[in-house]
């Protein structure tokens, strides 16, 4: 059976660490960097559990700063 596998990239400098993508993700993929910050001082989002990502785009859709790009492949 074909399995969908996804991944996201976060524009770390554009991200303001608002956490909305983390909340929106149905698969608990994303988290905010616990320590690291960007140039503006925000704890930006990152894929904490990339293996769970299905590329559903939920995180990107609710992102107010349009900093998430989503990729998706079908794995046979």
């Amino acid at each position, binding site marked *: 059976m074909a399995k969908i596998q996804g*991944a996201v990239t976060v524009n770390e400098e554009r991200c*303001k*660490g608002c*956490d*909305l993508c983390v909340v929106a993700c149905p698969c608990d993929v994303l988290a905010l960097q616990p320590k690291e910050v960007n140039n503006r001082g925000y704890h930006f989002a990152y894929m904490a559990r990339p293996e769970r990502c299905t590329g559903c785009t939920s995180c990107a*859709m*609710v992102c*107010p700063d349009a900093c998430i*790009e989503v990729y998706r*492949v079908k794995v046979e």
Partner: protein
Amino acid sequence: MELNEIIRPENKVYAKPRLMNSNHMHYCPGCSHGVVHKLVAEVLEEMGQEETAIGITPVGCAVFAYNYIDIDWIEAAHGRAPAIASAVKRLQPDKLVFTYQGDGDLAAIGTAETIHAANRGENIAIIFINNAIYGMTGGQMAPTTLLGQKTATTPYGRRVDLNGYPLSIAPILAGLDGTCYVTRQSVHTPAAVRKAKAAIRKAFENSLAGRGCSLVEVVSTCNSGWKLSPAEANRWMIENMFPKYPLGDLKNV
């Protein structure tokens, strides 16, 4: 499969719309404005209307929308965006003309322009961000502020005897003969974002087709003004804003 095998151009299914440039937006983290800006850019791009679109920015947080979306813009005096849009559309009827306004701009100082542009049936789309507070000036009471809601000018909560009732604009506009489409949306979940995008598209199509005035109210959060985290603000909006400003189409003719 390795991440670098997935993250390839041919596998990209979502990205920032091209019309939204890379300027860093001045909005607070988690602000609804960013999502709605993105939807405006996406819809214009998908409709292929970037060369015909003319947007009118308000006074308020969205005053700088013109810095983020690469179309032609006019920055309005506080509240006057619908008057400006009316003139632009009448003078250039082939253009897609829309305003982007907040609740103070549209529902307080600009109430007259809003109602009269809608009532004249101007072929414009009005995008109305209702977050029940003045964001840019530092969180004062808006006409749409809920009873009991604390703001900088209602520090003990909005009181009817002092401040009157929250103003619900969409039903007023829905009752006017000049409007063709009046809807309330939100952008707090992926499903809501999809619906809001469809609503903006419909409003833009109405402007191009000359069907009359469209209002897309987006019930939004102002987490800074509300003094909540973005996620808490979404919950507060669901619990408190939606009962007063219920989502859905009020008019679609």
